């Protein structure tokens, strides 16, 4: 961040718009065998996961503690996929130029949202009624969270898909024209025939994306709050932690940025589209990643510290349960992998300004985040009596059994598979945004050096 060096203009700046279009679309249509082999393997693992889920269901929904790891996996997939969409939304609002190549990569995760929604469904039967226990919903009917969480997550998913669709519409049209399809061929895309890329259309798209983006932002925060409180906080007696929803959201943002970095890295190393994702993108994202790591610590600290100082029995119970006794190992892992290690990696500018540095940190964070979800959701589901207001005698640690491992592996690979299949429907690189970028930046000669000039249209 600090040391300045001479300008690095993205290499694709010296490609013409036409070249870029062809390049991306060509790759889009022929993913290569490697792609399908990976898809196969993931599919296999996904089936294993389904088997695991089936075994869970056959055990019945009454014994919550069985479902802890499933819940954790759901929370993991949900917060990663749904929050990843936010990255592109936020960056587009901030009009940052470097986002262009990675915008679609982030939006594509909206598709995984559908999958995470499917994962929610079984949990609705596991989640106990709120009668006689603390919950977000005070005196409402017992099954309130089941209904509202479903609706909230559902609308979030739909909104995400809408963003993905409208953001990639111009590219879909380009694709249709380049591959010379007729309107009938694309009849499954109702909007394509009506898009002519007139200034009016672009204006419209800008507005639609803006509105959807704003809505998505607010919705996402709310859903984070609902899921985290209904499925974790409310299940642990005496746990009243105002910052937890925000912490959950921050952890989601952190992890989803990490996820995008890793995706970018994979794309670079496995496909020719890597050339659009350059140091610039990694460097910029890694700065935000560093910030989120610090926020992770900050939010964790402010809840831990308040509890430590207050020392009420209820607070001590919670601290012991999810931090320092029952789930201490998991907590330590989460703490090291979500904060300590990535912080140490990213704080060094020399490392941050590489491809591998951020990628390494991102990988660590992705694993750490999973532990963090385990610490909350498994812990929550392992509590027997939710009507208590203080956690006197701590429940035992629920260690994952074979079924849990099947569910975790299957669940996650299912999500990845969904994403891969999504790339079949929409080009993974946003062509129109890169073209726009070409238009809005130049490399100029300034006295004795070259310098990059960025247009700031109001």
């Amino acid at each position, binding site marked *: 961040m600090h040391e300045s060096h001479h300008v690095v203009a993205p290499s694709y700046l010296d490609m013409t718009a036409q070249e870029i279009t062809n390049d991306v679309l060509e790759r889009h249509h022929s993913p290569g065998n490697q792609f399908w082999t990976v898809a196969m393997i993931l599919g296999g693992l996904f089936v294993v996961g389904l088997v695991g889920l089936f075994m869970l269901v056959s055990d019945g929904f009454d014994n919550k503690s069985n479902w802890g790891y499933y819940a954790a996996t759901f929370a993991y997939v949900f917060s990663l996929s749904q929050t990843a969409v936010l990255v592109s939304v936020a960056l587009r609002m901030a009009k940052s130029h470097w986002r262009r190549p990675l915008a679609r990569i982030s939006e594509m995760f909206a598709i995984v949202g559908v999958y995470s929604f499917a994962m929610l469904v079984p949990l609705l039967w596991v989640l106990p009624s709120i009668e006689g226990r603390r919950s977000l919903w005070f005196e409402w009917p017992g099954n309130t969270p089941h209904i509202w969480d479903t609706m909230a997550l559902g609308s979030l998913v739909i909104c995400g898909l809408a963003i993905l669709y409208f953001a990639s519409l111009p590219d879909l049209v380009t694709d249709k024209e380049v591959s010379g399809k007729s309107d009938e061929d694309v009849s499954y895309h109702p909007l394509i025939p009506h898009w002519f890329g007139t200034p009016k259309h672009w204006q419209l798209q800008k507005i639609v994306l803006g509105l959807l983006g704003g809505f998505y932002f607010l919705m996402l925060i709310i859903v984070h709050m609902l899921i985290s409180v209904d499925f974790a906080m409310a299940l642990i007696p005496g746990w009243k932690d105002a910052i937890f929803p925000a912490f959950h959201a921050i952890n989601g943002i952190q992890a989803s940025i990490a996820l995008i970095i890793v995706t970018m890295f994979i794309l670079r190393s496995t496909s020719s589209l890597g050339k659009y994702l350059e140091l610039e993108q990694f460097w910029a994202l890694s700065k935000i990643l560093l910030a989120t790591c610090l926020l992770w610590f900050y939010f964790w600290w402010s809840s831990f510290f308040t509890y430590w*100082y207050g*020392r*009420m*029995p*209820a607070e*001590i119970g919670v601290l012991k349960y999810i931090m320092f006794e029952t789930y201490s190992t998991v907590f330590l892992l989460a703490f090291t992998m979500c904060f300590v290690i990535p912080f140490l990696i990213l704080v060094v500018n020399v490392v941050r300004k590489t491809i591998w540095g951020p990628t390494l940190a991102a990988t660590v964070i992705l694993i750490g985040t999973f532990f963090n979800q385990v610490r909350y959701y498994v812990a929550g589901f392992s509590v027997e009596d939710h009507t208590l207001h*203080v956690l006197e005698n701590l429940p035992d640690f629920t260690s994952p059994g074979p079924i849990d491992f099947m569910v975790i592996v299957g669940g996650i690979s299912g999500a990845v598979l969904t994403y891969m299949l999504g790339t079949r429907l929409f080009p993974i690189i946003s062509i129109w945004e890169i073209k726009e970028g070409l238009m809005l930046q130049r490399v100029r000669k300034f006295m004795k050096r070259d310098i990059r000039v960025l247009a700031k249209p109001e």
Partner: protein
Amino acid sequence: MATETINHKWGMVIDIDRCTGCQACVVACQAENNIPLNTEDRFRQRRAIEWIRVERYWEGEFPNIKARFIPILCQHCENAPCEPVCPVYATYHNNQGMNVQVYNRCVGTRYCANNCSYQVRFFNFWEPVWPESLKNQLNPDVTVRSRGIMEKCTFNIQRLRKAERVIEGQRGERITDENLKEGNFLPACVQACPTDTLIFGDWNDPSSKISSLKEKHFVDGGRGYKLLDDLGTQPNVIYLKKVDINAEHKVDAHA
């Protein structure tokens, strides 16, 4: 010093069932501890200083209405919320289980008063004054607190120190309920209480009355309870419920 050899842990048992609300303890406390007179305007300003106070609750509806009394003083908590927040150690926990206030350290941040769940800390908003007639009544063993200083119940530490000097230092006996009583070393409020509602003693002395009361009442169905127990402050003052014919206890509704 005797205090090192024998380790006391002072405490009190308050038997609500015996309290008649006569306020003798309040008066005794005022006299013993050089507490400035709580004139009417002091009460109006809500700046009255009463180290021990008797709160009164009405119970029931008119014809059969009952008055309930509960004497409240510093609970000398083991985990006192007021202690850690003081920037200058003006209040801390001494080795005899007492929450002590060091007047000449106090700088008057009033943070401790905010953080006391029992509202038993009092601030000298004004310089204390006594009418000429009362000048000679002031207790020489107790500091007169000037304005800007926080004060609270001390369990009459001056008397306990004296007890240690006399009983342990000179006679070399162990302090017991008896010799505390005959030597007039009990806190003024306890001494003044006509119905033995307030019982003072040493938790570390198994033979003391308060220890036996704790034995007796801190069992299922016993009358013993602590104020605001869910805060985990672990008071050294414990209460015994009122024995009520129609067994409903407004008092422990608060606890």
